[in-house]
Each structure stands twice: as C-alpha cells, then as structure tokens.
C-alpha cells in the first residue's frame, strides 16, 4: 500500500485544516477534489512529509514518516510539486533539476541521465540551459517530471 491514513488531523492554531481523514491508496493516479479551504494542500503536504500531522496515523510506502530513517527513505522515492514552487533565478533548467536530484540522494552517476530524461519528458530539451528566472514554467515542468507520489 502506498498511502495509509487513519484519523489524520492538522491544526493551525485554532483552525483545524484537516479533520480526521481516513484514506488508503495503492498504485494508480488519483485526484483530490474540494472547495477552497477544505484542507487539500495541508493533506498533500503531510503526504509529502513536509508538514507533520497534529494527530492520527500516516504511513507512506509501508514506512513511518515520523521517524528520521524511514522518512529519508520515503523522500528518496517521493516526487512532490508544491503549490507555490519557487525558483533560483541563477539556475538553469538543468541545474535546478540536477540540484534537487542530488538533494534527493540519487546516486551521482545516475544523475545526468535522469536529469536529461526528466528535461526531455517535459519537452524542455531545446532550452536546457535557459535560466529559471524568465520561464518559471520550465523549471516547474522539469521538477514535476520524476514525481511518483
């Protein structure tokens, strides 16, 4: 099972953003629908290990993201495209994707091929050395390519 959630909650001060979510998901493509303020982003951020839950049980890829070692293993395999993705203006498309591949602890020898494949998959092969600054959509597409969440 890729995602196992039971009674998951998340509070921001007095506001309860996520209230007791139960969810199980295996391989496949899923969508999360809801009105503004329903807690979609908070739930996704918890599933991306960015935000710890206030209470409840969360398991990802059969591991407990609350512990350091398992969380690191999850993060090596996880793809996450934040709602508001920022860019380093001094980075090119290739440098940006490569930087995060290294931070994801992908073996260094595999990085060039993986980066080229990701950039190609996002159809950015004709402008790989273009800066992220004038074309943020380029980097967004590039970093989104390897996602597997």
């Amino acid at each position, binding site marked *: 099972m890729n995602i196992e959630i039971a009674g998951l909650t*998340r509070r921001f001060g007095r506001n309860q953003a996520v209230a007791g979510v139960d969810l199980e998901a295996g391989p496949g493509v899923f969508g999360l629908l809801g009105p503004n303020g329903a807690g979609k982003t908070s739930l996704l951020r918890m599933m991306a290990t960015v935000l710890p839950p206030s209470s409840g049980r969360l398991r990802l890829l059969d591991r407990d993201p609350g512990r350091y070692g398992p969380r690191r293993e999850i993060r090596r395999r996880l793809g996450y495209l934040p709602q508001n993705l*920022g860019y380093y203006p001094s980075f090119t498309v290739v440098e940006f994707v490569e930087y995060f591949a290294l*931070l994801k602890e992908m073996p260094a020898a595999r990085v060039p091929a993986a980066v080229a*494949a990701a950039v*190609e998959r996002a159809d950015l092969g004709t402008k790989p050395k273009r800066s992220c600054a004038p074309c943020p959509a380029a980097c967004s597409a590039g970093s989104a390519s390897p996602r597997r969440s």
Partner: protein
Amino acid sequence: MMQRPGWDTAPPDVDLRGVWTAVAAQVWRRRPGPAERLAARLLRSPGLARALVTTPSLLLGWVIASVAVLAAGAAATLETGTPYVALLAPAFAAAGIAYAYGPGIDPAWDLSQSMAVSHRMVLLVRALAVFALNAAFGLAATAASVLAGSGTAAAVTFGWLIPMTAVCALALAAATLARSANVGVVVGMAGWGIAVLAGGATAGRFPVLTDSALILPCLAFAACCALIAFYATRSPRGTS
C-alpha cells in the same frame, strides 16, 4: 547549442529518443569543480556538496558580509578596546545563515523540505563554511596586525573565530557520522558550552576566551545560535 532531431524522421528500428537523451546527459552534465568534489568526499554526500558550493542566495553574500563585519568590528575595536568583532561577527554570520534559509526566504523552501538530505545538514555545512571563512580572514588580519604591532586581530582570531570554526566542524562531523543533524547540533553546542565553561574555570588559560566577563554573553550567544538554527529549520507543528 544542440538541435534536437525530429523523432518522426528516424527509422523505426532506431531509438533516436534514447540516443538523444544519452547524448544530452553527457552534454548537459555539470562537471563538479575540485572544491565540490572534495566537499562531496568529505561530507559523503554529493547533494550537500552541491548545496554548499552553489548556495543560490549566499555564495557572494558570505564573503561580502564577513569582510564588512570583520572590517567594521576591527575598526571599532581599535577605537574603543571592546571586542565587538568577537561578539558580533559570529552572531551576524549565524543569523545570516539562518535567515537565508527558511520559509519566505528560500524560494524553493517547500520543495527542499521534501528532500532526503536534511535541511539541518545543509545549514550545518553552511555554518561551518562561514566560520571557516571568517577564521581565514582573521588569520590574514592577524598576519597584517602583527606587522603593524597590534595584537587585537590575533586575540579575536585565536580566541573566538578559530574555536567557533572548530565547534562547527565538531557538530558537522558528529552529524555526518550519526547521519542526523540534530545529533550534530547537540554535540556542537555541548562542545561549545564545555569549552567556554572550562575556559572560565581555568581563568583564561583555555584558548576559547581570555576574558571571563564574556562567559555569560558567550553562553547566551551559543544558546541564541541554537535557537536560531532550530527556528529556521523547524517543521511547524500545528501552529503555523
């Protein structure tokens, strides 16, 4: 600039896309320089090494801020005799590190949070680099001041900057061995506390500090550094 071939023009038995991707991987790859290769070997992490040498918002800022603080502090110290550099330089450096890496400041913060390389490890590596740079500047200033017949720079360098670099190196070594930045922070702060207290107990014989009046400010400073580091790298727990 490479021109990508049209996939439709390739013979059906030729994997043109695969060939193109393999060529692109070699052409686009960024060869790490000697400093990055050395850092990757020492830190056992190519990701950390890349984060250190290509720190998007810090690389030039480190040098400028360090030079400015040390120069201004040294000038003030010469005028007043109060060791402003000793008190302010590492504080500025630590605060600079903390505030250059966090939500609202790092544009890719949310993405960084989901990476396998801990953001606290990145912070520790950057802290060590900043203090090492400050110590190097201090050594240069010491050499210059010895020639000019002044011992102010030497006192600051050997009494503060080099010990702070050593403490950061200790924290980084512990974090690298334990694969946990929290362990590194705890070991580093414990080492700093012990060194300062030992320096006070031996009436200035320990090289960390020669003025016992600075012990409390130094301990407060160390605690502030730890708080800043933890605050800047915290994971919000239900309150943000």
